[in-house]
Structures are given as structure tokens and as C-alpha cells.
């Protein structure tokens, strides 16, 4: 089958390597909770300092048990998404009720990204794969893969600046038996903090919730932000030295 995702053996074009990303997405945060896995990301594509695309959805449904989120180069995200759609279509055509599980998708992406890294032509992304195994005792799965092919599974995952700003908050407040509302509140809180501090994020998010009932990706929503903190209104620099 002529799939553009297979390396063509007789290409005569000049060799190209990704040296830097151009249109990028900011952090993705994800946590396991009592009923499954929840993931959140904002909907912006930044072109350097410019807020270029304000409605770019970075969370995708792979199949009925798995969702994927990505930060980093958004064209590579689209390429990876098309690749996964082709795999899912192949599963559908087999018509035997079996689909790729989240663990398999994670493994596949890790191999693809590592292969690209080894050819020094990386897909410049940090991917998050979330899913719940089908069946009555389905385990929740949460894993990440980065542009080097480094991959691991964890209960709480953050990409980009989220690793620095959101991770400490998540580590402090996460519990394995959180309810859906508690999990959502925690993720929203971390995203709000990121919005205050990350210069390349906007206040417009999509949330994906994977449970035994399937994958649900929300419509974009806003979070409440405050700008009347005392130190924003009267910055420290302007306060008198004598208190």
C-alpha cells in the first residue's frame, strides 16, 4: 500500500532535517484519577512571539479507548495524527472488534519518534497518550514521549513549561482516588497558574476525559483569571522601601 508514512526508497530530493520548530503549542497536563485519565491543553499555536492561531485543538481522539495530546511543532502533531488515523482506519477495516490500546499507541509513537531522532530529523513534539483498557477491569494508562524518543508512564504528566510550573503543584495535590470534579479543578488550577506565568499560552482550553465509557473531548472553554492581585496593581518596584 502506498502510504506516505512509509519511507520511500527511491527519493531523489535533497535531505532535509528539522532544525527548529516554527508553530508550536504550549503545555499539556494530564493526570490519572479514580474513573480514568484527564488531559488539558490550551488552543494556541504560537509563531515565535506572535499568537498566530487561537483555535488549534491539540487534544485528539485516537480511537474509542485512547486520546493523545501534543505540545511542540504543530505540523508534526498533524502528521502524527494522520498516521494514527490511518492505523485506526486499518483496525476498523479488519472489523474484528479489536483496536489499538493506549499502551500500544504509546509504544508505537515512542518507536517512531526515536527512529526520527536517530535519523537526526525529529518530530519536534512532546506527546501525551491517555487511555483506559477495554473490559470490566480496564487499567488506566498515561504515558509520554518526547522528540528524542524518551518515554515513560506516570500518574501525572506535564510537558513544556508545565514540567517546571505545574508539576510541583500536581505532585503536592494529586491523589489516586480523585473524583472527576476534583481532577478537573486541579488541572484548571494548574492551567490558570501557567496562564499567568507562561508567555505563550492563552486562556482557552480543551479538556479530554478518557474513562471506561469512552473518550470525550470538550468544546473550548475559558477559565476565570484575576488581575487585581495587589502586586499587579501596585508592583513591588513601585512600593516605597519603607513599609
Amino acid at each position, binding site marked *: *500500500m*502506498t502510504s*506516505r508514512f512509509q519511507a520511500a526508497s527511491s527519493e531523489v530530493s535533497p535531505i532535509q532535517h528539522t532544525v527548529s520548530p516554527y508553530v508550536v503549542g504550549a503545555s499539556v497536563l494530564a493526570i490519572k484519577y479514580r474513573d480514568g485519565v484527564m488531559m488539558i491543553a490550551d488552543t494556541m499555536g504560537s509563531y515565535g512571539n506572535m499568537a498566530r492561531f487561537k483555535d488549534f485543538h491539540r487534544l485528539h481522539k485516537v480511537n474509542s479507548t485512547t486520546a493523545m495530546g501534543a505540545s511542540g511543532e504543530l505540523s508534526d502533531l498533524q502528521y502524527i495524527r*494522520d498516521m494514527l488515523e490511518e492505523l485506526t482506519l486499518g483496525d*476498523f*477495516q479488519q*472489523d474484528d472488534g479489536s483496536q489499538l490500546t493506549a499502551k500500544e499507541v504509546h509504544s508505537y509513537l515512542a518507536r517512531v519518534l526515536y527512529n526520527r531522532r536517530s535519523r537526526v530529523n525529529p518530530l519536534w513534539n512532546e506527546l501525551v497518550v491517555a487511555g483506559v483498557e477495554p473490559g470490566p477491569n480496564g487499567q488506566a494508562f498515561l504515558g509520554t514521549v518526547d522528540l528524542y524518543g524518551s518515554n515513560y508512564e506516570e500518574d501525572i504528566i506535564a510537558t513544556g513549561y508545565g514540567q517546571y510550573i505545574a508539576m510541583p503543584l500536581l505532585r503536592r495535590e494529586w491523589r489516586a482516588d480523585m473524583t472527576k470534579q476534583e481532577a478537573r479543578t486541579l488541572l484548571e488550577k494548574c492551567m490558570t497558574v501557567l496562564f499567568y506565568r507562561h508567555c505563550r499560552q492563552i486562556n482557552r482550553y480543551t479538556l479530554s476525559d478518557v474513562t471506561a465509557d469512552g473518550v470525550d473531548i470538550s468544546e473550548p472553554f475559558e477559565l476565570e483569571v484575576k488581575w487585581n492581585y495587589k502586586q499587579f496593581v501596585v508592583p513591588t518596584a513601585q512600593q516605597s522601601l519603607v513599609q
Partner: protein
Amino acid sequence: RKTTERRKKLDCARSETMSGIGTGYDLASDTFSPDGRLFQVEYASKAVDQMGTTLGLCCKDGVVVGVEKLVQSRMLVKGTSGRVMAVDTQAGIAIGGLAADGRQIVNRARQEATSYRDFYGVPIQGKVLADRISMQMHMYTLYWFMRPAGCSVLLASYASDGPQLYMVDPSGSSWGYHGCAMGKGKQIAKTELEKLSLGELTCREAVKAIADIIYQVHDDTKDKLWELEMGWVCDESKRVFEPVPRDVLKEAEDAAKAKADAEKEREKAKKEEELKKKAEKAAEKEKEKTEMEVDKA
């Protein structure tokens, strides 16, 4: 000398073949007969006519296809070796004729659908897919080293051009249909299909109608073991080609079976009535005969 020897051998072969319709011009699929027929292609169509009935109905909200899958042995697991297969999310194929040939056609159709999606970013339209399948099946009729596919395929598609039903036969010609049948019971099936009001039928009604017709044309004495396999792509299935849901299929099958059984009972009762009448007539004749003999005596 070599060519004359070869021609002599062929002439011998020609005279030795059974005097059938094609005599001599039916040995290779690349040979025309004097009256312009390609016999191998026609024989391939005959292979389709020997197999179980396959039906398709194009409704206003989708397309439904059904196959009378004749089964060889009681040992076979129910539900395996399907004749109805998805090509893409919005299209599927029902195979009539040799299942193995049909499976190859489906594989090719899947490649075409996937590469179209890859290239153009949208699902392939029904008529485009039908065209691609036709080209494939037609290609098999062009070369002496290939044989025509021994199957006809019913393509059910619900893409941007709406619900479409196409049949592609072994010659590679494809036609769009409102309702279509092939296989053993195709004559009766076609007559029954024409009775339906095709413009107003919904897919649910079509499932019942197809189950009905297949149970009607199915010959219990010849083919005891069989399964009814149906697939649809419609608004109800969210425009995804899938096997007809078990509960819908069961409801339709039960109704069809009941109707077919009722018909059989009626036929049986009729036959018994006729036999009874015949027996009564024979008894009367006997009576008359004995009376005449008595009179004579």
C-alpha cells in the same frame, strides 16, 4: 512449421471440447467469439449465479446490503468468513459469488479508499470508488494470463454524494442501483424488489424487506445450512458502515422466518387439500366402476 503445428494442436483441442455454447472460443479470456462475445467473462458471471443470493437497497437515509451465506458444514463457527466487509468508514462491500475473489476486490477497494483519503483529505465518493473497482475487475478480463474475478460486488456508500448503491460484475461494468440482486434467487428477488416503494423506504424497513426476500428465495431442501449476513451505512449508524445491529437483524429475521414458515404451512395445507380431492375423486371412480360391474353382472 512451429506455428502450423501449434495451430493443429489447437484445432484438435477445439474439436475435442464438448460442443457447448462457446466451443473453441472460450478457452482463453482474451479471445472474442465470432459473434463478439467474451465467453470466459460470461462464464464468470455464471459462477455468481450459482452462489447464494445477495441483495442491496438504496434508501433515502442510507444503504442496506444482505447476503444469503450458504455454509458447507455444521462445524463452521457462525459469523466467520464474512461476505459483507467495510472498505472505509463510509463504504462497504457485499460479495456475491466466489468469496476469495471478492476478498481481493475488497482489499483493493480499501487501498483505493485509503490513498484517496490520504491525497484529497476527504472520504472517497461512491461513484469514484465504484469506478476504481470497475477498472480493477475489468483489468482481469484483458489478459490471457489472468482470469476474470468470479464474483460481483455490491458497493454501499454514504459519502458526500449521499447514499449510493453500485454493482460491479465480472466484466467490470458498474451500474448504480436503487435496488439490486444477484445469485441463485435473483429473478424472484428482483421481482420482489420492484414491488417496494424505493423512494420512501427507510433503512430499518429495508432491513426487514431484504430479510423477507432472502427467506423467500432460500431453498431449504437444497441448502439446509446458511446464515443471513447484513450490513448498512445510514444516518442511524452515524454514517459508518457496520454490520446491522444484532437486535435489528434478529427482529427482521424472526419476522421473515415467521412469514416464510406461514407460507410453507399454507402450501402444505393446499397440497393436502389437493391430495384429498384427488383421493375422493379416485374413490368415486372406484365406486362407479364397481357399480357398473354389479350392473353388468
